């Protein structure tokens, strides 16, 4: 089964508010986590990543938090804009036998209300 999952399938936020998308993972051996954004008709687009030896990483308007104790990952988007409307996937990387495998969660749809 899936080792990465999301708490909320759909999230609606007002334009200008902050968004928080949550993700739970179960594989404690995962060493790298990624958030992807997927717009309709397009492939996933890399947003931000974090390694397992970190607990926070910031990008432009986005922050990823990693809590290894409870195996929880979150993506925070500041001042959400209409262009942020998309499906967001968290993903984890595990490495075994000399190769990497990226496992995606089911996704959260973010709807930004103008």
């Amino acid at each position: 089964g899936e080792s990465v999952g999301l708490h909320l399938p759909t999230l609606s936020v007002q334009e200008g508010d902050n968004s928080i998308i949550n993700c739970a993972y179960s594989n404690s051996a995962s060493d790298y986590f990624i958030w992807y954004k997927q717009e309709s008709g397009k492939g996933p687009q890399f947003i931000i990543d974090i390694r397992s030896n970190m607990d926070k990483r910031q990008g432009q308007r986005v922050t990823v938090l990693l809590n290894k104790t409870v195996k929880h990952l979150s993506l925070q988007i500041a001042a959400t804009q209409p262009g942020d409307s998309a499906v967001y996937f968290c993903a984890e990387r595990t490495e075994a036998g000399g190769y990497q495998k990226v496992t995606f969660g089911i996704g959260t749809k973010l709807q930004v209300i103008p």
Partner: protein
Amino acid sequence: DAGVTQSPTHLIKTRGQHVTLRCSPISGHKSVSWYQQVLGQGPQFIFQYYEKEERGRGNFPDRFSARQFPNYSSELNVNALLLGDSALYLCASSLDRVGEKLFFGSGTQLSVL
């Protein structure tokens, strides 16, 4: 700089047929991965190739196969198509086999009738 390109963009096949999907990675990227995305779900890992060698395989039947060419482009082949194979097939490239920061193409939408 061109991104990851996939062809065709859409494809309709009937049960029992086979299909070949193609992918060209970003210039300089040596690793190509294939994913299947069913509507409403996250992408599922099928294969990873690095330097023309298979480096990873997901939980897909032997009807699925792939290869990587000397120019690092890749093909995904699916034989004996089933209705359940209908999905968006995504190709992603990355610089090395560790697969950080995957760059995805827009995918091939396969419909099996």
